[in-house]
């Protein structure tokens, strides 16, 4: 194998060897190389010493109230609206999509239920139809009958006067 110290890309092999991360085959290969390479032997020895020294550095235990403080901070950041709706959160989560779907379906139903558009008609005629009420029609018919009766009376009077 090429000397890891001469090929920069392979230098990580020495780090991995010293930290015990190499698999058995690679480890054996490295040990075989180190038998004839004092520089790599020295490097690996020094690296193992560093590894052991770092091993001794134990961190302090975490404060007992770490989680409590964190949740307090999280709680402070939650908006008043989120707090208000939180008890109903599961309800909202399921109800809102269902309500939205129902709304869409109702709207679709209404649109489908509307009668087909009539062919365009003269504006005046359409306005008349829309504004006339049944009692108005009845009055108009009554008026027409009254006029017809009046006409016939007038004609009868004319005939009598000519005679």
């Amino acid at each position: 194998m090429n000397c890891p110290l001469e090929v920069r890309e392979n230098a990580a092999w020495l780090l991995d060897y010293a930290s015990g991360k190499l698999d058995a085959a690679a480890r054996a290969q490295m040990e075989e190389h180190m038998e004839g390479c004092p520089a790599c032997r020295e490097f690996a020895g020094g690296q193992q010493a560093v590894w052991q020294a770092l091993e001794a550095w134990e961190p302090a235990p975490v404060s007992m109230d770490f989680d409590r403080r964190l949740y307090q901070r999280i709680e402070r950041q939650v908006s008043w609206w989120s707090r208000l709706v939180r008890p109903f959160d599961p309800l909202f989560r399921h109800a809102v999509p269902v309500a939205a779907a129902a709304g869409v379906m109702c709207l679709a139903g209404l649109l489908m239920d509307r009668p087909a558009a009539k062919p365009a008609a003269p504006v005046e005629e359409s306005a008349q139809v829309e504004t006339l009420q049944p009692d108005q029609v009845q009055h108009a018919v009554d008026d027409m009958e009254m006029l017809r009766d009046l006409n016939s009376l007038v004609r009868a009077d004319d005939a009598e006067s000519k005679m």
Partner: protein
Amino acid sequence: MDERVKTDMGSLAAALDFDAELMLRVKEGDGASFGILLEKHRSPVIHFLYRMVQNQAVAEELAQEVFLRVYRSRESYEPTAKFTTWLFRIATHLALNSLRDGRNRRLEERLDDDSADAPVRQVSDRRPSVEEEMVHRARLDEVRRAVAMLPEKQRAAVLMHKYQEMEYSQIAKVLNCSESAVKSLLFRAYETLRARLAHMA
């Protein structure tokens, strides 16, 4: 979100790691999953930050900020990488900012003040003598000083490599650099540490 996309994200998360899956549940509003993530990663994150800034109170404060950011980002979370890569990226970013802000300007003083943070070594069969305890503390101080004197990025790389047992590729993603750059960082960092600590063997 479209159901198919959701399923794809879920399977991607599962392929990446269980933590990412938990984070997706947090995104859905599951607070218990956040609790599981906190329980699992609380100590590694605080220990990493402690070794970075070498002050327990500052480390815990930064760790609070890390988890707060994780919680705040839950709605925009996408499992594009391992959860721990994301988590340590936040932690490293905050630690580097803290160091640059000068909050640790008086690091040397605190190294002395903070020595009380270090746990007392437990020996199962007998208590260490006062002399042994002093030697242990002196060696520990030496290690702490040697690590503290490393440039910040080298320090972060060493701590992730040694204590979090991260692969080079993951460290590269955390530090936002190439894998070969990480190997180079580590090589130089360990070279410095060997010069300072090799005599401790």
